[in-house]
């Protein structure tokens, strides 16, 4: 295994230092970091971050390998600075059995570009009717700890209560896609001025907020951990703040796109901007940014959702919701003003803790697993959909010039990205 000496990288406290990476761990930091025969990486001017961790990724395999595979999604993740991603369960077949989660887990190991941690479905077939075999997935080789029907809400309150209770047995967490389905029948975009004008069926903020409030109360009642996926409204932030003040064990994520883009993007009717939950007005965007700064929202998660061309190059109403995120997340959060320390916290340390990914989210220090990423903070780049590593092209940032670029990513001491290119 090659030894690497990273010279002159700024760690998140701002000071430049050297990092010796040997045998999969950070062997030394600072003046002690010298290694005979080590390959030297000049990191002058670069920022070293703990490898990013995504709690919310759709890898599409099995089932829609035309849109993404575990391998192509892993490559996109590594290029985005990630060393671990949590793969959502809405594949085909659904990841609702030990067999499917182990398959995804093994595909992730085989690709070897990031740690792929499968998320298990809460209910069989995501149908919201019966609990999936959560325990079997927890004890499988994939060691599933996060369970989610993402894409669908666990709408039945009794079923949600049971899920929250049941996963306590193996310190699991339920990640809720908060969307009251009866309030979003046929919904296409945020319900407000823009939807009224565009004649697109509205997705009211209350459909998200009502579920978050309900589930926070349920989590309190049964003493469970609850995670809220892709929080998108100012009202949700208020409810989360209230729940946290009350001591409820709830965590929440926000996506990069909800931090940057607003519902006016729908005016083009280009479904690349169609996503669930939908893009919201600027007041919500401002509230989400503030909540992330305050810690009411704990993490940034991509909700990377690749879709084949035919599912996006069509009428808005027929398009599937979702957008790419892995390769742009770091730059987007940087563009909305997150400090490097905040990025390390919200995109690595905290998501690793929530997901139980103990090897990840640790700042470089002697002995910790060498999962880290080097970022050029001064670089800018223009997003070209065709140049992305994902198999899909549905990035909402096409043509945008964004700050900061990942130069190198290390997974347990091995480079997955060098000179801004995937090693394989």
């Amino acid at each position: 295994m090659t030894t690497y000496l990273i010279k002159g990288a700024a760690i998140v406290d701002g000071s430049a230092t050297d990092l010796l990476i040997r045998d999969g761990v950070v062997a030394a930091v600072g003046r002690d970091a010298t290694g005979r025969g080590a390959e030297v990486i000049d990191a002058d001017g670069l920022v070293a971050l703990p490898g990013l961790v995504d709690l919310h990724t759709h890898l599409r395999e099995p089932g829609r390998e035309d849109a993404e595979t575990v391998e192509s999604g892993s490559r996109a993740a590594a290029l985005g600075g990630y060393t671990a991603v949590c793969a959502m369960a809405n594949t085909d077949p659904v990841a609702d059995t030990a067999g499917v989660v182990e398959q995804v887990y093994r595909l992730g190991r085989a690709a070897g570009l990031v740690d792929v941690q499968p998320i298990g479905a809460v209910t069989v077939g995501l149908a919201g009717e019966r609990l999936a075999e959560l325990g079997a997935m927890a004890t499988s080789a994939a060691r599933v700890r996060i369970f989610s029907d993402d894409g669908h809400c666990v709408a039945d309150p009794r079923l949600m209560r049971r899920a929250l209770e049941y996963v306590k047995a193996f310190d699991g967490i339920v990640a809720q896609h908060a969307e009251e389905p009866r309030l979003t029948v046929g919904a296409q975009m945020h319900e407000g001025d823009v939807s009224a004008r565009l004649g697109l069926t509205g997705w009211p903020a209350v459909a998200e907020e009502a579920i978050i409030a309900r589930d926070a109360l349920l989590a309190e009642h049964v003493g469970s951990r609850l995670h809220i996926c892709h929080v998108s409204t100012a009202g949700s932030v208020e409810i989360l703040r209230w729940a946290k003040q009350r001591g409820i064990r709830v965590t929440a994520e926000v996506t990069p796109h909800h931090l940057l883009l607003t519902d006016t993007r729908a005016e083009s009717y280009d479904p690349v901007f169609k996503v669930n939950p939908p893009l919201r007005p600027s007041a919500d965007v401002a509230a989400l940014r503030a909540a992330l700064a305050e810690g009411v929202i704990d993490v940034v998660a991509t909700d990377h959702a690749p879709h084949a061309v035919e599912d996006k190059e069509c009428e808005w109403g027929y398009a599937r919701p979702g957008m790419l995120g892995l390769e742009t997340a770091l730059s987007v959060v940087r563009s909305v003003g997150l400090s490097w320390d905040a990025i390390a916290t919200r995109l690595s340390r905290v998501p690793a803790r929530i997901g139980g990914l103990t090897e990840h989210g640790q700042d470089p220090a002697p002995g910790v697993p060498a999962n880290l990423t080097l970022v050029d903070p001064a670089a800018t780049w223009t997003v070209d959909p065709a140049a992305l590593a994902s198999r899909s092209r549905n990035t909402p940032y096409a043509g945008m010039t964004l700050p900061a670029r990942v130069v190198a990513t290390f997974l347990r001491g091995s480079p997955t990205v060098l000179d801004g290119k995937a090693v394989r």
Partner: protein
Amino acid sequence: MIRHLLSAADLDADNATLVLDTAAEMANLAGREVKKLPTLRGRTVVNLFYEDSTRTRISFEAAAKRLSADVINFSAKGSSVSKGESLKDTALTLQAMGADAVVIRHSASGAPHRLATWVDGSVLNAGDGTHEHPTQALLDAYTMRARLGRLDGLAVAIVGDVLHSRVARSNVLLLHTLGARVTLVGPPTLLPVGVDAWPAKTSYDLDAVLPDADVVMMLRVQRERMDDAYFPSVREYSRRYGLDAVRMRKLPEHAIVMHPGPMNRGMEISPDVADSPRSTIVEQVANGVSVRMAVLYLLLGGQHK
């Protein structure tokens, strides 16, 4: 002039007035022995209809043919469209056929906007989902101007299912551009969240609005909306928001009654109102051809190749 007509908002006051004035000249031709003009000879106009709407398709077809354009009717039924060909592939086919204009009717809001990104020719929105129907608004404005002599300052009440109405959206935008004052009337469930941002007033009380209205436009209300709990029953709807002879007496003497069709007689409009001399429903159809000729002429006549 603009290249596409996707929304009534594409027309500023000058362009909208130009369309109406041009339509007035086109209407004069309707009385001539030879109704055909050579203006668009050699141009191809495609009617791409994903929704059944015989009246709109025929109106566009008559307009295009009177201007000597070649008309191709491409309807979703019995074509590759119903076999799952995507809008984009259809667009590329039309492009290859050299369509100078595509008139599109589609159940999905924004489909014309998408089409406009894939074809070089002009795209005319002939009704998209619950979004807009700009030529309907133009013919409504034309009809109002013809009957009442002006648009500036007119009080227009648009009554019914505003939430799902493309006619209402286009009319609000166009009438505002042309200086009319619009009041949207309906049960709160059928007025969209966000309607406050529109350049129109809203009311839940039809009887309060009628005495000051110069024009009352009744929108079609689908019975199925009842199943989604937008209103409790047809009877209650028509009692509160239907226009019958008794209610029509509240209108000023000169006021006119419009309906974009097709009507649900007995639901939003009673038969005696629909057939009264105040009703412009038949004129609206005739004016539709003149207005569509004007739009085709203005969009295509000046198209630079």
